[in-house]
Structure formats: C-alpha cells, structure tokens
C-alpha cells in the first residue's frame, strides 16, 4: 500500500494534474462549467415536459412545445454558450481581454454553421450543431479564435488608439484585425471551399465519445478519480477537465432521444451516472462510511460521523476524506477505491439490461442521491432502489476496513486516556 501511494503521489498525480492544468484544458473546463447553471435549469424543463406521473403527462401534453423552449434555448444551444465561456477563460489566461476572446470565439463557432432560408420566416440557423453535439466544434473554434487574437496582439498587429481614447473604445478597435482574420479564415474554409468543419471535428472525436459510453470508459474515470482523491487531490476537477465534454455530448444525445419520445435512451455514461449512482455521498461513495462512523465506539469517529453526515447527504465529503482521514490511509483507501468499481459495474449492468432508466437530466449535485437519481432518470423509481442497493453494497465493502481502523483508533484513544 505504501508503494501504491508513492505511485499515485510521484507518478499519477504530477502527470494528471499537469494535464488538467494545461492552459487550454483549463479554459475548456472553466468555460463549460460556467454553462452548468443553464444546463441544470434547462434540463429541468425536460422533466416538466415529460413528467413521470401519467396523469400529469397527459395534462402537459398539449403544451410540450412551449414547455420545451427554455430547454431548447439553453441545453439546445449549449455549445454556443460554452464557446463564449471557453474563449473568455482562455483569453483571460493569456491576460488578454476576456470579453473580446469570448465574442470572437462565439463568432468563429457560429461561422461554421450555414444559415438556411425558410420561406415566410427568413433566415434560420440549424440548431442541432449549436447543442451538445457541437461541443468539440465549439472547443476547437474557440481555441483557434483566441490563439489568432494572441498571435496578432503579441506581434502588435493591431490598431492602436491615441492616448485619451476611453479604454473600452480602444479595446474594441484592438479586436478589429483579429476579428477580420478569424472571420475571413473560417468563411473561406466553410463557405467558399465548402469544407464541413463541423462534420470533420465531430467525426474526429466520435471514437472518444463512443469509448466514454462503454464499461471500461466508465470504469477508467472512476478509478482515476478515487486514485487521485486517495492522495487528497480533487479527482473530479482533474479528470473532468478531459471527460466533461464527452459526458456532455453523451447527455445531449440522451436528451434529444427524450424529446423525440424514445423509450430507451442511447447512452449510459453521461455525468449523472457517476454523480448519482457511484459517488453517493461524494467521490468514493463515502456516505456508507459516514453511516458506519455514526455507530462507532471510537469517540473521534463518532464525532466526525456526526459532523460529516449533513455534508455527506449533500455529496460533500472533504470532511471524511481529510478528517478520517481516507487520504493516504492504507486501511480506508482500499474500500474507497474498490466500492465505486463494484457499484459502477452493477449500475452499468442495470442500465445496460434496461432494469433502470438511463440519465437524461442534470440535477444540482448537492441533492441527496436518491432524489438526484430519481430526477436524473426522468423519474424512475427503480433508480432510487438502485441507489439504496449501492449504499448497502458500499456499506458492506467498507465494514471490515472500518472495523479494523476503528480498532486502531480505540486503542490509541485508550492509550491517550491512560497516559
């Protein structure tokens, strides 16, 4: 176990964190994360439009179109919002003007679309590619736009205003040449040469998205996240930097299937799968451990259990990870890593066999897991059952390790008293 922690601290952690701290990946993560409020609220309109109760469903049916507009204009255009966020974050990281970077990125992304003339309505933009399926297009175009901006500004290729001109005015002039270059390049490639940038980028990332939906594709992030957390590093924020775009593309396909009226959704592996079925109580499924702590005869563990219960129900588990601690603890790190693998396999299996509905909604991550799982699956009660089963399983897995750790602590506590 010593060797294992050494491997994580010296090999896995430096590499993984270096990747996740890479400037572009960080901008992608921050940009996408900034759209999450829209995704959460927008996805809730899916539940309202397709409520799990039949009587209610009949009631809203005539108005489904209207109810879904907030969904279509948030989640359905998620990549557009993300492109602004990514461009803003990336420009900021270079100490360039964030707003210019964001707007330029959005324009570069929109330029990859071809407006369609619709009789009687004027020009329309096909919305399909603005949603989650265009996520990788948004990422690539935003990086392209901001890199052009940086290239030109570094070489001082820009209009400089005389002193005394208000800064905001000067800035908008500074962005003129970058905007000209970005728009012209995309225009030539997409509209003159008619090279379909969107198709090309989507096809390029297709294998990655496909892999993210397989059982190994689900287990690898689970393992990496618990490995990192067992060294006390925020695993989700590191792994999410790479996986989040994939999760969003998968989620988007499921949401689209819901609005199309599909009974079975195509994907198992969007983020809610991890959040509600695997990370019950936080990464490592620590709610089970907190429950065990509550029964402990060690006064320290009992106190910690009480203090960690509410945060744990809300899926915040730093108190347990650092308090118990699980971090670098050769006893508790084992079930912390094994438990989520087992519940991950079980949950994947349950969804693959269609015993439990697949996730299509992103509820706020601080909800208690059974409620979150119910909402995430569009209201499947069997999802609640699966969560409860997973809590039982992780409790059983944690139990022997908890007992052995408790014994050690009680011994230490007794020694302290007698000393």
């Amino acid at each position, binding site marked *: 176990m010593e060797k294992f922690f050494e491997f994580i601290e010296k090999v896995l*952690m430096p590499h993984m*964190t270096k990747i996740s*701290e890479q400037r572009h990946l960080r901008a992608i993560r*921050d940009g996408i*994360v*900034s759209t999450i409020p829209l995704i959460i609220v927008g996805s809730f309109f899916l539940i309202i439009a397709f409520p799990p109760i039949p009587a209610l469903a009949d009631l809203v049916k005539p108005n489904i179109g209207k109810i879904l507009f907030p969904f279509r204009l948030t989640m359905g255009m998620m990549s557009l919002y993300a492109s602004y966020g990514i461009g803003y974050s990336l420009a*900021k990281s270079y100490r360039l003007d964030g707003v210019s970077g964001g707007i330029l990125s959005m324009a570069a992304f929109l330029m990859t679309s071809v407006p369609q003339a619709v009789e009687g309505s004027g020009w329309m933009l096909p919305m399909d590619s603005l949603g989650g399926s265009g996520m990788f297009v948004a990422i690539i175009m935003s990086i392209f736009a901001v890199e052009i901006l940086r290239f030109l500004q570094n070489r001082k290729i820009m209009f400089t205003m005389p002193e005394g001109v208000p800064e905001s005015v000067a800035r908008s002039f500074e962005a003129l040449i970058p905007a000209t270059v970005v728009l012209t390049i995309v225009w030539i490639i997409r509209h003159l040469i008619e090279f379909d940038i969107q198709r090309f980028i989507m096809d390029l990332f297709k294998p990655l998205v496909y892999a993210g939906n397989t059982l190994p594709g689900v287990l690898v992030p689970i393992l990496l996240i618990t490995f990192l*957390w067992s060294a*006390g*590093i*925020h695993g989700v*924020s*590191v792994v999410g930097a790479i996986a989040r775009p994939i999760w969003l593309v998968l989620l988007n396909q499921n949401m689209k299937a819901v609005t199309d009226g599909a009974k079975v959704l195509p994907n198992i592996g969007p983020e809610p799968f991890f959040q509600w079925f695997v990370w019950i109580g936080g990464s490592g499924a620590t709610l089970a451990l907190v429950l065990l702590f509550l029964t402990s005869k060690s006064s320290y563990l009992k*106190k*910690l259990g009480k*203090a*960690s219960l509410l*945060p744990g129900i809300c899926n*915040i588990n*730093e*108190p347990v*990870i*650092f*308090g118990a*601690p699980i*971090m*670098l603890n050769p006893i508790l790190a084992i079930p912390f890593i094994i438990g989520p693998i087992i519940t991950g396999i079980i949950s994947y299996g349950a969804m693959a066999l269609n015993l439990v509905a697949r996730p299509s909604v992103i509820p706020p991550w*601080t909800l208690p897991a059974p409620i979150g799982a119910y909402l995430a699956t569009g209201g499947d009660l069997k999802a609640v059952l699966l969560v409860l089963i997973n809590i039982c399983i992780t409790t059983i897995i944690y139990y022997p390790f908890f007992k052995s750790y408790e014994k050690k602590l009680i011994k230490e506590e007794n020694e302290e008293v007698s000393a």
Partner: protein
Amino acid sequence: MKKILLVCSGGMSSAIVVKSIEGEAAKSNLDLIVKAIGSGEYEDEVGNGWDIVLVAPQIRHRMKVFEGRAKELNIPISVMAPMEYSPMGGKKLIEKIRNMF
C-alpha cells in the same frame, strides 16, 4: 480585524471549514472575517483586501497559480493540512492563521 480567504474547488467544502474557524475565533475573541470561494473566483476575489489566503488540500496541485497572484499582491498564502481541513480543524487553523500574521 483580519480578513481570511479560503479557496477550494467549488467553495462548498471550505464553507464548512469557515464555520469551524468562526466558531473557534469566537471562543478565543479573535476578530476575523472568513470567506470561502471556489477556485474559479480566485483571480477576481483575491485583490479585494484579503490579509491571508488559505488553500484547500485537494487543490494543492494548483498552488503555483494561486501563489503567483498572491505574491504579486503581497498576501501570505498557505495550503491547509488535511487534518486542519475538517469540521473539527478550526482550532489548528486558528493557530496557523496566528502564525501567518
């Protein structure tokens, strides 16, 4: 009065630690203002007159980024130890804060 800024990933878990610090500070009559933020807010927030920055252990791999900005502003910055970063870690953190003044 001293102003302490706590940084974690999303500003959630550090909020728990803020409570613990405030509790201990009240006990020892220490006048502190403590705020928890997520790492995304750090760049914009750190310049708002904070005296000390404390970074949560789970994002210590990003310390270099945080440190760079804090050094520019001449604000002492430090990573919290795992056992300090817990609902029961307030006492230890108060000691740490005292040593950083």
